């Protein structure tokens, strides 16, 4: 498996522009998470989906941020309009189906993508 795929890997944009980040989770994973990481705030959970349905978006900073998951193999995180304080690394992660624990200690392990480094000037 190719793992979680994110695109683009780097994005540089000007303040006010719309930014769309993309994520393809691992096939068969039912949970998808979007995180943001900065030096000041560390790794923050923005939103997560279960079976394509948003479950908790309490971490989304404001209305400029929106996330969608139109199908099991694709999700987007959009920022419109972007601001310099949105500069960060954005990670997508996916987790397998919440089934009976296997006892291996790896149930619900989150698999992270390589991240998208966003710079808003």
């Amino acid at each position: 498996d190719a793992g979680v795929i994110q695109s683009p890997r780097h994005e540089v944009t000007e303040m006010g522009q719309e930014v769309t980040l993309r994520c393809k989770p691992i096939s068969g994973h039912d949970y998808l998470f979007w995180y943001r990481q900065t030096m000041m705030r560390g790794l923050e959970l923005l939103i997560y989906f279960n079976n394509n349905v948003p479950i908790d978006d309490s971490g989304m900073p404001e209305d400029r941020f929106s996330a969608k998951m139109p199908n099991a193999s694709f999700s987007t995180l959009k920022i419109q309009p972007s601001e310099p304080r949105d500069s960060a690394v954005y990670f997508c992660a996916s987790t397998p189906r919440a089934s009976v624990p296997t006892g291996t200690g790896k149930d619900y392990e989150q698999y992270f993508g390589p991240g998208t480094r966003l710079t808003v000037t």
Partner: protein
Amino acid sequence: LAKTTQPISMDSYEGQEVNITCSHNNIATNDYITWYQQFPSQGPRFIIQGYKTKVTNEVASLFIPADRKSSTLSLPRVSLSDTAVYYCLVGDRRPRSNTGKLIFGQGTTLQVKP
């Protein structure tokens, strides 16, 4: 979700065993303890997960006392490549739990020196 507390940073030398302790005084009955590792410019990577006593895999060991209010990640004979940030998290791992999310704290930055 239970809050975790761990040291901000630790230094070690190659070949030594490193133990990172995490406090989680408010851990709930159904919470599991999970550790992630993050290298610079990469996403976090799962290391190990446990509920009680001891868990060991090819990378690390996790020691959890009976009261589960703390846990210790043990890395045997570290090398320079183990320099990373290590996160301790607790969360409900029951099936159908809607708390599939994990809350990452600041983590422990481990610096391994030659």
